[in-house]
């Protein structure tokens, strides 16, 4: 074993993994932003929508949550070109991004829904009793409270998204995991390279956790969850 062959890492492995990291970030960041907005929309519809909208949104979320992301990605990339009438061809990147947006949106909507449902009726009544309009109550009472209640769950979801971004490899989009796999097939040194790639993910996940905790601390209000140490 030439574990300490430093040049091997600095010249061959790390530049490639860095490229992979950029590709991963190109998936994670848009997916969390668009998926997050999609999740908020779905969450709001599932609480305030009409009976039919609720039913449709609930079913959509149940299906997305009940089926492995792997299968969803396979359907988007391998399956859609075989649709009977309109054949849809997605690039690997598009397939991965769309899959992640739907998936993270469905999970986010659960937290948004829970946060909205947990707001006590009394809070709304108090606003009404002070003569506030519906819009004022939503804007000044419901949103700030729901936002704080949803942060921990939604943040966790982003951390999951970072890890599940590795599934883009399955639809042949070459990001961090894909680059590692290619490097291994060229160098036959799986242990070191996969460990190093693992460190990249650990770094991303730890950084995200840290930012999230800082945000939670900054927005902490007595009575809304606990300030994490």
């Amino acid at each position, binding site marked *: 074993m030439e574990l300490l062959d430093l040049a091997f890492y600095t010249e061959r492995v790390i530049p490639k993994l860095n490229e992979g990291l950029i590709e991963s970030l190109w998936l994670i960041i848009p997916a969390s932003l668009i998926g997050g907005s999609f999740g908020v929309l779905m969450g709001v519809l599932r609480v305030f929508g009409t009976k039919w909208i609720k039913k449709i949104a609930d079913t959509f979320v149940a299906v997305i949550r009940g089926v492995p992301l792997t299968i969803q990605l396979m359907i988007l990339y391998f399956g859609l070109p075989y649709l009977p009438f309109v054949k849809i061809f997605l690039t690997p990147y598009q397939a991965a991004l769309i899959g992640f947006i739907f998936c993270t949106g469905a999970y986010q909507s659960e937290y948004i829904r829970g946060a909205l449902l947990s707001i006590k009726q009394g*809070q709304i009544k108090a606003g009404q*009793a002070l*003569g506030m*309009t519906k819009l004022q109550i939503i804007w000044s009472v419901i949103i700030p409270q729901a936002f704080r209640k949803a942060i921990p769950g939604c943040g966790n979801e982003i951390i999951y998204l970072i890890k599940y971004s590795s599934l883009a490899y399955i639809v042949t989009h070459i990001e961090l995991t894909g680059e590692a796999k290619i490097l291994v097939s060229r160098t036959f040194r799986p242990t070191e390279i996969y460990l190093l790639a693992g460190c990249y993910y650990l770094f991303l996940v730890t950084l995200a956790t840290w930012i999230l905790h800082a945000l939670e601390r900054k927005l902490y209000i*007595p009575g809304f969850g606990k300030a994490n140490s």
Partner: protein
Amino acid sequence: MTTLLSVKNISVTLGNRKILDNVSLDMHAGDLKVLIGPSGAGKSTLLQCINHLITPDEGEIHLEGKKINTQSNAELCHLRQNVGMIFQDFNLFDHLTALDNICLALVKVRKLSKDEAQKRARKELDRVGLSNRAGLYPAQLSGGQKQRVAIARALAMQPKILLLDEPTSALDPELVGEVMNVIQDLAKGGMPMIMATHQMDFVRSLATEVLFMEHGTIIEQDTPKVLLADGAKTRTLDFCSKLNNLKGCEL
């Protein structure tokens, strides 16, 4: 005497059960009406109907002689701005400090500037004896303190009438006094109120009228002197002496 507020023939039906059955009352300047009655009698529903937190199935609300069009959001908001409400379980906004709880509606509804709102909020907090708690959140306040902030929040809107829905019944016994003192001061200051309460010494000393409710209707209505006179054969006295037996010393 001008009529501040009148409630005309209010009914609320839930399924086939009448929660409120054709209830009417009038409020004049200086009135302090007390609602008494067993739980489920409709006291809370009546109070919430007055400012349309619950929409009655039938009946009308008139504010200062003018009928409120309940279809119009603007008129509803106008009604609610002029009728303050104190809830049994406080309903402070959990995400705002005591001071901001008071300021919110002053800025959003009364359209005061932030500075004016804070000035008025501090004055009201001072009135309920909590000026040193302005920066605390509801979760950091005791029940009694929460209710006093809630009262300050309602008063800051400068309502013409105050509705109080059993303001002390969710409090530990030793905290009842601090809240009742604030309410007593308000009553002596001439604030018109409708209050559901079982604090009998308050009823005897300050109420101008007692309304006894049961099964969604007002079945007795008179001054406390008449309804609670020794030996009076009233449902009110009967009910209150039962309360008295349970609690021991309040009557």
